[in-house]
């Protein structure tokens, strides 16, 4: 397949191709204007498509994920294709305020850098207890000889960002799953012993971007957890992406990324615009500034209690 592409490019272009662009494209660089159409026609015939430059939906990226990695929590490639192919028109016809990128990583290690390089970042995670193979934990400790316990205390349990780990006297690992934030550090160090749980899904963040114009932004959590198993689940994901792109297309200024728009209008207004309810997982902490008009308090609090009641029903 690569040879086929290379042969066609040798015919019409410079013979230089990039594997790959920062947003996952194969880039064929250097061709005369007349030959561009011929080249495209030929590779289009092989099953390849153009797109992803300019103020459009860009091509997406997904990590190796489930095809090789034991930490995968979702069908990364499947999600990637579902999303991007729903927007083929927007990929081909740049008509948006600026660029919009999807990136999918199978776990919070985020090998695709989705949290900072995607307008919509889909990151795999799990909701239930992590899986611990205590025999393998002991094997790791024993393999380090007499300093084994100390090593795993210094480099694993004491590095947990929420102090959710402790090592028992018999070298079994204690995990406070309710306070585990799925940072992946302990799983990274002991991949044979520790694995994601079975109740897998994704966390979705919005608004990541690189520097121009207002500086770099990280994405913000808007969906703490979503299952992606059934067709309906995927339908909902696509609908959410459509809401996000439609709202931004209508309200974004020229050359304004989604994250920049959120900076300008505020997260609360953005959530209203795309039809999402507020969630404490969207903030690191509640507001610190008291200068806000809150005469709608009772209504808003009622919404929270209603949602809780529905969820428990």
């Amino acid at each position, binding site marked *: 397949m*690569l*040879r086929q592409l*290379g042969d066609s*490019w040798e015919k019409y272009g410079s*013979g*230089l*191709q*990039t*594997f*790959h662009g*920062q947003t996952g494209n194969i880039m064929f*660089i*250097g061709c005369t204007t007349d030959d561009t159409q011929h080249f*495209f*026609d030929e590779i289009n015939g092989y*099953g*390849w*498509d153009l797109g992803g430059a300019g103020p459009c939906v860009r091509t*997406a*990226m997904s990590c*190796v994920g489930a*095809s*090789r990695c*034991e930490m*995968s929590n979702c069908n990364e*490639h499947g999600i*990637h*294709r579902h999303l*991007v*192919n729903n927007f*083929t028109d927007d990929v081909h016809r740049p008509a948006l305020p600026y660029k919009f990128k999807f990136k999918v990583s199978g776990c*919070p*290690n*985020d090998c*695709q*850098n*989705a*949290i*900072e*390089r995607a307008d919509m970042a889909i990151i795999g995670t799990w909701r239930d207890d992590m899986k611990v193979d205590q025999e393998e934990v002991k094997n790791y400790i024993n393999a380090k000889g007499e300093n084994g316990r100390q090593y795993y205390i210094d*480099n694993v349990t004491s*590095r947990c*960002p929420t102090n959710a780990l402790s090592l028992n006297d018999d070298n079994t690992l204690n995990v406070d799953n309710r306070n585990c934030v*799925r*940072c*992946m*550090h302990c799983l*990274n*160090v002991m*991949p*044979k012993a520790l694995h994601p749980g079975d109740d897998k899904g994704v966390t979705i963040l919005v608004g990541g971007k*690189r*520097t*121009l*114009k*207002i500086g*770099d932004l*990280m994405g913000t959590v808007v969906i703490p957890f979503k299952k992606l198993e059934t067709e309906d689940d995927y339908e909902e994901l696509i609908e959410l992406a459509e809401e996000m792109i439609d709202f931004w297309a209508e309200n974004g*200024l*020229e050359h304004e990324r989604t994250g920049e728009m959120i900076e300008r209008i505020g997260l609360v207004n953005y959530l209203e615009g795309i039809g999402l309810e507020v969630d404490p997982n969207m903030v690191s902490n509640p507001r610190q500034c008291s200068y806000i008009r809150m005469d709608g308090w009772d209504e808003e609090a009622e919404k929270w209690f209603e949602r809780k009641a529905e969820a428990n029903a």
Partner: protein
Amino acid sequence: MSDNKPRSPIESGCPDGFQYIHPVMRKNYGAWKFHEHPQPGVLRHVGYSGDEIWTVRCGTQRILDIFTLRELCDIGDEFADGYIHFTIRSNVEYMVSDPAKVQPLIEAITAKGYIVGGTKNSVAMLSHTQGWLHCDIPGTDASGVVKSMMDELIDEFRNCNMPNRVHITTSCCQINCGGQGDIAINIQHTKPPKINHDLVSNVCERPSVVARCPVAAIRPAMVNGKPSLEVDEKKCICCGACFPPCPPMQINDAEHSKLAVWVGGNHSNARSKPTFQKLVAAGIPNNPPRWPEATAIVKNILSAYKNDAKDWERINDWIERIGWPRFFEVTNLPFTKYHIDNWRGARNSLNASTHIRF
């Protein structure tokens, strides 16, 4: 020019990647059990079924000529199983299911001059973009800088001696298409653009350019009797954002476009929340063809990190632990007024505590 109707494009979108995945990986999709790292550049993944897949990773120059591409394919067909993966940092990975193929594959790759490595706690391939090869904007090269630096860092690519992985990136203009990393080497312009007023009205859509400026420093003006643009140089931050939509606003300067080095970018959630990279050095000469000054600074930072960081600490974790003042001490880099973020939104970067190390 043909007389026939133009061919209608087939808008097929993203192709199905599953057809290109190694059969063993496809068979065990979502059912992998654990992985090992037997040697630098080599990964071994084992599935719940007992199947294994070995991955050999080697560096490429990212922008491949047709001969290199064919050579990589030939190696893949003859010594591997014909399946290949280009990583996010433009390394190439060959996947084989038979462990007996691994050593001959490594030998074949190495014999052709490619270098196996870039896994786990190594200095991975420098991530970069087009630079002077294929972009109209940049103030410096991408591939050239990467080649020069990788030549000096190659032992850290082919071995795993670092406390944790090191992701280095370059950006050749201040739009920063190269993502952030543990260490980033980016252009930093230090003077406002030099405007060719005679060309502006012929080439530029002036309202777009005015809107593009992050600090609203550009306004339309009549200059030499022609409609043009002028820059309020007291406001100008010399970012060069006006240059792409208006090439007569030349931002690139052989002397005044310098390089800056940033450290501590980390997208992973492991151990701490993701962090942005921070400025550590600037005023570095943009000095092709080998950029020795920038390379020396990068090596200096890596050396300090390697000597002092604990296992599993990325550069941002290391600096969190030792503190920024000590970072400037051990690297001997100057701390200046430019290091302090000087606008009201930057309050959270100021030290509102007495947490000081002595």
